[in-house]
């Protein structure tokens, strides 16, 4: 079993909203992963170290890292505990970063299992673990049966079949080259792999859409002070009164309100105005705003067109693809001021409204719906919602990439198959293992073998 040698990562505090969360790594490369992520060379065992963690060169969060050197740790392996702020976004990014550096998602009970196997636990505890794993297997089995019954399951099964077919074509050529069979040219196999890769990419992306649908669309309203952020929020709430449902009883910020439109739930977040300030309280607000921008699914960037460009230019968010620029106050500003700013934003996704008179609020809401709608996968029934599945698909796709590289590099078929088999194993994590016999069966079924 490979699991023993690998490094795994998981959130070890309860999922949900909490002030602080702990992400834990165990395995041989735990320490090197955290060193890479923090640009730190060394951590002293059992000493809490305050440091920063980066995501795509941006500062993601301030964290506290504690390193437990093997065997003096929970699992008996090198363990790293990362205490971060309890935002779902931050937790997911940290786990993603660890995975990018070579860790993989832990299976249910895997930390405990390792602890047991490394002699960190006694028998009664161990039996408890066996039961837990059993129960979880049943649950996982149930979940995967559910998945298999659904459209997504059928679709992934189709992908698996395609991959098995491609592997069969190559194995056919290797094991049955003495037969009177027309072997498939590499260019055709290459095309099939590219198609499959695109399909997988679509599935992977469907995870993001699935999340939007499931958790609601995070829409921070950003802009300089007095550009009309709060008015806009109020306008939404008043206009959509019939359908608006201020989410009660959750732990959300008081400045968050949500409304439904076009089948989606939009979570509007009013933020602190963006400007240079020395006021420490206001600074904190701005820092928070930046975090909202990072986590946003859609940004409403609102401005007062009568103000100079310098007022907002440097606050324009990086991800302009997911930003709607709102030119507010059309009830009071002059036409030339509006024209001037429209010209400036002519390459952007813009809309003109008046938050005060509610002019254009419905148009804006429709625009927001459309913005999400275009992200919808071609077949809305085919959506993956589990992170484990997403990572299996990503791994599958990566192995396909290696195989495609080998084809371009004119490597022999057994080298290409090597990566395709790894891809098949990754994909099979979702649907169950495929054995060599299944591939041979496929060959015997489709090709006339035998002299």
């Amino acid at each position, binding site marked *: *079993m*490979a*699991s*023993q*040698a*690998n490094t795994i990562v998981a959130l070890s505090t309860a999922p949900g909203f909490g002030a602080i969360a702990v992400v834990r790594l165990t395995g041989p490369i735990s320490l090197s992963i955290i060193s890479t992520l923090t640009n730190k060379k060394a951590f002293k065992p059992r000493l809490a170290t305050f440091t920063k963690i980066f995501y795509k060169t941006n500062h993601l969060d301030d964290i506290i890292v504690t390193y437990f050197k093997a065997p003096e740790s929970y699992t008996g392996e090198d363990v790293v505990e990362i205490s971060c702020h309890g935002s779902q976004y931050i937790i997911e990014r940290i786990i993603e970063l660890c995975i990018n550096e070579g860790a993989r998602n832990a*299976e249910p009970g895997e930390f405990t*299992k390792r602890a*047991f*196997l490394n002699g960190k636990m006694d*028998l009664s505890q*161990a*039996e408890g*673990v*066996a*039961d837990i*794993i*059993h129960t*979880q*297997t049943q649950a*996982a*089995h149930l979940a995967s049966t559910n998945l298999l019954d659904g459209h997504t399951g059928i679709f992934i099964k189709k992908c698996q079949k395609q991959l098995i077919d491609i592997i069969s074509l190559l*194995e056919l*050529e*290797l*094991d*049955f*080259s*003495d037969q*009177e069979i027309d072997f498939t040219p590499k260019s055709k196999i290459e095309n099939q792999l590219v198609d499959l890769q695109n399909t997988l990419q679509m599935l992977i992306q469907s995870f993001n859409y699935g999340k939007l649908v499931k958790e609601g669309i995070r829409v921070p309203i950003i802009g300089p002070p007095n550009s009309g952020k709060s008015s806009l929020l109020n306008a939404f709430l008043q206009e959509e009164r019939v359908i608006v449902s201020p989410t009660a009883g959750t732990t959300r910020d008081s400045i968050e309100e949500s409304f439904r439109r076009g089948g989606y739930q939009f979570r509007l977040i009013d933020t602190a105005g963006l400007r240079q300030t020395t006021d420490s309280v206001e600074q904190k607000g701005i820092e928070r705003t930046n975090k909202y921008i990072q986590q946003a699914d859609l940004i409403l960037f609102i401005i007062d067109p009568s103000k100079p460009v310098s007022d907002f230019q440097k606050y324009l968010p990086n991800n302009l693809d997911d930003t709607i620029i709102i030119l507010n106050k059309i009830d009071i500003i002059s036409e030339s001021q509006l024209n001037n700013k429209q010209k400036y934003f002519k390459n952007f996704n813009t809309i003109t409204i008046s938050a005060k008179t509610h002019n254009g609020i419905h148009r804006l809401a429709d625009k927001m719906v459309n913005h999400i709608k275009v992200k919808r996968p071609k077949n809305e029934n085919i959506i993956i919602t589990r992170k484990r599945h997403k990572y299996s698909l990503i791994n599958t796709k990566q192995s396909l990439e290696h195989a495609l590289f080998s084809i371009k590099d*004119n*490597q*022999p*078929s*057994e*080298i290409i*198959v*090597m990566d395709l*088999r790894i891809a098949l194993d990754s994909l099979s994590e979702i649907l169950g*293992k495929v*054995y*060599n*016999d299944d*591939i*041979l069966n496929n060959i*015997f079924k489709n090709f*006339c*073998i*035998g*002299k």
Partner: protein
Amino acid sequence: MKTDYEIIVVGGGHAGAEACLASARLGHSTLLITLDKTNISRMSCNPAIGGLAKGHLVAEIDALGGEMAKIADSTGIQFKMLNQSKGPSVWSPRAQSDKIEYSKQMTAVINQQPNLDVLEDCGTDIILENNKIIAINTKNSGNISCKALIITAGTFLNGKIFIGTETQTGGRIGEQAAYGLTESLNSHGIISGRLKTGTPARIEKDSIDFTKTTIQYGDKNPAPFSFQTTDFHPPNVPCYLTHTNTRTHSILERGFDESPLFTGVIKGVGPRYCPSIEDKIVRFKDRTAHHIFLEPEWYNANQYYVNGFSSSLPKDIQLAAIHTIPGLENAEFIIPGYAIEYDFFPSRQIYSTMETKQISGLYLAGQINGTSGYEEAAALGLMAAINASAKIKQIEPLILKRSESYIGVLIDDLITKDPKEPYRMFTSSAEYRLLLRYDTADRRLSEKAFQHGLLPERFYLTVKSKEKLRHTLIEYIQKTNISPTDINPILESKKESLLKSGVILSKILKRPSITFDDISCFLPQNLVDECSKHQNLKNIIEVDIKYEGYIKRNLSQVKSLANNENKKIPSSLDFRKITSITKEAQEKLFKIKPETIGQASRIPGVKPSDITTLLILLSK
């Protein structure tokens, strides 16, 4: 007559021949019991040894000190390296064999082997004491005692031959079947089943019009199977290619009513990779032609094997159909094609030592394990003898890993996959193909063979010095820098892109069009000369360097799986009582009774979480 041996081998086919030779060479007084002394190591089917993946097995048998490769080299009449247009891990040697000469030479080796007697008789009953083999009862010679019994009965146990609606008993056409042993094993709790295989007609050479066929020769520069073979100059006798047509197919269809295969008379399962011609035309209806190879059965043979035309249809239908094939219009039968059904013992009942889990000292090897092919049988016979010997000597058994040999894959698959049709070796069955090249068999296995006492020291030393030379040369290639002025002329002649600055030699050799010989001028002359003395070594080094990265990846995969691979599962463990694994796993594990966690993890239906639970229970 002597009635007391250490090891007795029942059956003189390819498994039996390797088994009795290995046993005697390992120092045990050995008896081979065969129905017919003149039929030892007969090739029941095609006149060829090796082929895809099978060639790998032959090389491994050779490295382990077996006999097959050497005899195949000295009796081959045409040699071909298959898959040469593919990557190096799937190159595989194959030879057309002189069937008569093969059998003759193997018989001679057996007859000359000290410690080894041959008895013409039929084993009928196994005799046990405390569930341990102590003797075998024979039809004519009574009880003969032994410490270990290796049964290698091939297709002979309750063998039944089918030609159309005619059936006859027999282990091979013209030879009697063997009775008694299956029932005796059954009575001691060993389960048997039925399998089926078939063989095509043999026809008279003078009745073939070869002008209507395509002639096919072997390689001009043939490579031998055995790393011990030197001075290799085999003949290159051709085969001939022709094909069936729609007329052939419609004649064959007329006989379907009388086909034992389609009317359900044959109960045994046949191999799908080796279907009869009737099977092929039913399953692939839209094909209007199938290749037919005409292969000489020996040097200057008057008898040709009609490869591709295996059939159990009535004789007259077979003949009428053959007469529609170009070149065979006037073909005359020597023997018609036939199917044969025989007993086998599902291999989940054996340990990886080939010893049965039920009865101590009883080993089953060869086609009765549910395999097909001379090479598979020989490998299994050899392994059974090595391990029977190890048990008697009370030394560690020889269990080959999947990551070090095709033989390891073969035995492990037989036990864990519980195959439903005759098992044939395929390269795709091996996870680590790149590590199992046929030309590295000596590197992989000779040390173990030497330690077990089967490979003579002089051959082992040859392998060792070859290995040393290989390491030295590879290290040299990986460390030596080469300047553009030195290398560019060579690159230019190969139409490769030129260098601007110096680079290590291995980088140059990694380029697809560059061969060892292209760079050998930069290596110490004495080492290159030395290298030429070893068969194929230049090519081996070239491949080692070219595929270095991929080989390393395979090695690290093996390493990551190695942790629990050999963790033993006690035979006392009752899988049905483990409630924290899935029901399916309970049943599969109970049926197969894996010896190790590695085996358990490869049983279809056993999930990773089941293995985790097992590990936890085993750590108690």
